[in-house]
């Protein structure tokens, strides 16, 4: 279900599909259950993002490919600078200039969207792509009541009159768990607490019933107790509506309890992808393994945390071969010269020569993080 590339003839048709056609097509799309289940909602193929600077071109993302199925939550994790947020921004064409997608394709429900001009892309945001950001205040206009904002969003995207839209807005607010929704419709964003605001943002993101939602660090600004509420809400609603979610976060805990699959990024590359339980319980890439072992747990207490020596390379100085090789306990000659692509590993895929199906490299350091990994 995850690795089906849209066939080439579909590509040709999709390239020329205008936004008008899309909004006409999508509802019928949703009804067509049989075909729908097999096709990924979002499909990113060999995406490369470049930032031309006067010191040369920085490759911020290199050869990133993944799919998200209907109703699936794909977690994208990585440390700062790994390119996780940039992956999301590239998909929704919100890269900061001079960043640009240099290679690769992005498909939304089978239609190519990465080559759309800005004015053709704007109607997609909101209608087909919902967005949730870290700071709820950036998504809400402080000058309008949340009712006005919801009703306007609904009426922009769906054929409803004022009264129907108001009913819909009420329904949405109740759905995201806002008490006394009827009265709160007339409240302004500053009258809500942080957690309640993020609920309103979720309601806004869901208002046009998009098939894809991108959530970038949606709970990072919230306290743990509220975080749990928001994540559960997001997960439940998206499962109910069959919405595909790309959840970008640095927090493995958030991924663990929310995502179905997880994509791990390092230095602008996707280095491991797989079902969340598998990646957490038995990570395949040495970096993921180190990362998992370095997280303190609340069940067992260790004397020392496992630590990956060194730090992630800057974009201007990504080493040749595997980007992780200078920090990797298993690094060998091949890792320093030849770049590994994603290869089948465990229940998912990892970009590591240890998993080369033809000629796997031997592990150099057998007891590297094994004991730590078992503790998790």
């Amino acid at each position, binding site marked *: 279900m995850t690795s089906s590339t849209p066939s080439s003839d579909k590509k040709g048709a999709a390239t020329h599909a205008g936004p008008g056609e899309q909004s006409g097509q999508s509802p019928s799309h949703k009804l067509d259950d049989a075909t729908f289940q097999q096709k990924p909602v979002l499909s990113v193929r060999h995406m490369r993002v470049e*930032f031309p600077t006067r010191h040369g071109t920085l490759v911020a993302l290199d050869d990133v490919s993944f799919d998200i199925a209907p109703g699936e939550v794909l977690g994208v994790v990585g440390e700062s*600078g790994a390119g996780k947020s940039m992956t999301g921004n590239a998909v929704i064409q919100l890269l900061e200039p001079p960043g640009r997608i240099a290679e690769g394709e992005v498909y939304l429900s089978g239609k190519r969207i990465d080559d759309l001009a800005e004015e053709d892309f704007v109607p997609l945001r909101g209608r087909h792509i919902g967005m949730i950001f870290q700071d709820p205040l950036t998504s809400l206009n402080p000058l309008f009541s949340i009712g006005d904002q919801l009703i306007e969003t609904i009426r922009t995207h769906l054929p409803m009159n004022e009264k129907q839209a108001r009913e819909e807005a009420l329904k949405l607010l109740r759905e995201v768990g806002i008490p006394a929704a009827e009265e709160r419709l007339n409240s302004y964003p500053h009258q809500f607490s942080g957690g309640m605001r993020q609920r309103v943002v979720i309601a806004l993101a869901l208002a046009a019933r998009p098939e894809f939602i991108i959530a970038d660090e949606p709970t990072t600004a919230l306290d743990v107790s509220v975080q749990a509420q928001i994540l559960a809400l997001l997960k439940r609603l998206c499962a109910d509506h069959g919405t595909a979610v790309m959840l970008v976060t640095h927090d493995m805990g958030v991924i663990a309890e929310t995502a179905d699959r997880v994509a791990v990024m390092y230095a602008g590359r996707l280095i491991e992808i797989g079902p969340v339980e598998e990646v957490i319980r038995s990570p395949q890439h040495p970096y993921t393994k180190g990362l998992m072992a370095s997280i303190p747990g609340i069940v067992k207490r260790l004397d020392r945390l496992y630590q990956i020596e060194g730090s992630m390379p800057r*974009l201007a100085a990504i080493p040749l071969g595997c980007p992780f090789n200078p920090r990797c306990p298993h690094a060998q000659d091949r890792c320093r010269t030849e770049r590994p692509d994603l290869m089948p590993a465990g229940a998912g895929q990892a970009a590591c020569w240890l998993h080369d199906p033809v000629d796997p490299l031997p592990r150099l350091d057998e007891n590297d993080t094994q004991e730590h990994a078992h503790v998790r």
Partner: protein
Amino acid sequence: MSQELQRADPTPVVAKPPGKLRTFLDSDIVHSWKNQPVVIVATLVTLIMFAAALFAPWIAPQNPFDPRQLELIDAFTPPLTTSDFTGNFYLLGSDSQGRDVFSAILYGSRISLLVGFAAVIFALALGTALGLMAGFRGGWRDALIMRIADVQLTFPSILMALLIFGVIRGFLPRSMHAEVAIIVLIIAIGLSDWVQYARAVRGATMVEKNKEYVQAARVIGLPARKLLFQHILPNVMRPVLVIGTIGLALAIIAEATLSFLGVGMPATQPSLGTLIRVGQDYMFSGEWWILLFPGVALLMLALSVNLLGDWLRDILNPKLR
């Protein structure tokens, strides 16, 4: 995303730190400078005019402040003309006293720049000191200083300068007026202009004093004086210097305005503003050069300094980048 990029980006971690000159030549400031022809021109014009003003005694054909050097018989010589009487060449013509306009502009911009710089430094020092105190100490000092600033802001600064100028002169005997005109001008313009420095410094101080590097210094018990001068002041100076550059252009214009209105520099020691005031009498009688050239000089000076200030503000303001 931009944050990630910025954090990942700055300066090599492996390579040896390059030399200071190379770092400077490779910096964003130099790069931005090189790519903006307008800024390059503004820089050149500013430098030339500063140099001309600074070296006026060596460049100018005559000293326009010295009545003995003026040839009354050469009055109203048009530009690019050699006088039939004295054989003096007048590049930009001469005025009613036979004063060489070119020399007058050189000496005049000297006074304009002197007043401008001195007034800015005075305003900057006063505003920074008051802003630091208001921002760091807070409480009634803050309230008092900022309320005075608010009241002063309700008057146009040129009106303020006029008022201060008049008040100071009122305390001085009439005989001293010409001698101390330049100092009175500096104080008047400086006093009318401290508010914006105080506001900028106060805001920046309130931000910096709560930053953790200042708190770390407080934890070791550093006295307030050291906190202010070692940590906070150097870190709030950047916006102040940008305002200062733009303020220089404004101070030059303020000086010209006052002199034009006849309350600034006396006609015996003309600044650019005085020259324009004198020149406007001859605007319609055919001696256009007496007004035009000082006017152009003032325009070029103020405009190029202003353009430089704008560019500095843009490049140094992290919010615009």
